[in-house]
C-alpha cells in the first residue's frame, strides 16, 4: 500500500485502447481477475499485487513500468 505522498498511477485505459479496444472483461480473463478488479485498478482505487501487476503488463506485452507509474513526492524531495 502506498504511503503518504505516494501514488501508483497506471496507463491501463490507454493500453486497452491501443490493444484494439480490449474490454475490462477480456483483460480480467488474461490477468486472472474479475472485471470489477480491473475497473478498480484502472480508476486508481486498488493497488494490485506485484504478481497481478506483472500479469497485466504481460497481457499488453509490456514491462510493469510501462503500465504502472510510481509517483512519490517524498522520494523527489
Amino acid at each position, binding site marked *: 500500500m502506498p504511503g503518504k505522498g505516494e501514488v501508483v498511477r497506471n496507463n491501463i485505459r490507454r493500453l486497452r485502447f491501443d490493444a484494439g479496444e480490449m474490454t475490462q472483461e477480456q483483460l480480467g480473463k488474461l490477468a486472472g*481477475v474479475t472485471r*470489477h*478488479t480491473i475497473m478498480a485498478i484502472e480508476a486508481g482505487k486498488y493497488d494490485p499485487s506485484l504478481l497481478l501487476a506483472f500479469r497485466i503488463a504481460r497481457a499488453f506485452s509490456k514491462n510493469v513500468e510501462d503500465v504502472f507509474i510510481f509517483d512519490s513526492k517524498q522520494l523527489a524531495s
Partner: protein
Amino acid sequence: MAEFEKRAWWNLCVAVGAVVLFAAFWIVTRKPAGSTGAFGILGLSGMPFFRLRQPASDERDREIDRKSMIAAMSLFWILLVFGVVGMGVDLGWDTLVQVPVWAFSGVIWGGWIVILTVKSATSIRMYRAG
C-alpha cells in the same frame, strides 16, 4: 456489482431481517422466548455456499474478505470484553444471577449478528470505495 459484493448484501439483509423479525414477533406475541425462533433465518446466510457453480475470487476479493473479517472480529471482541467486564463490575464477580435461557441464547445469536452485520457492511463499503 461483484459476486462477493452481492453476497455481502445478502448477508446484511439476512442479519437485519433476523433482528426485525425477532422484534416483530416479540411485539406481536409478547413472548421473547418464542420470538428467538426468528434467529433461525440467520441460516440463510449459508445459502450462497450451496450454489453449484461458485464464483471465483481474486486477490481483491480475498483482501476485502480478510479486512472485513478483522473489522467484525475486532468489534465483537471489544463488545465481548466490555460485556464481560461490565457485568462483573456492575453485578459483582461472585454474584449469582438467574438468566432466562432465551436471553442467554439471544446473546449468542446477537454475537453472530454483530459479526455478520459488520463483516457485510465493511465489505460493501470497501467494494464501493474501490
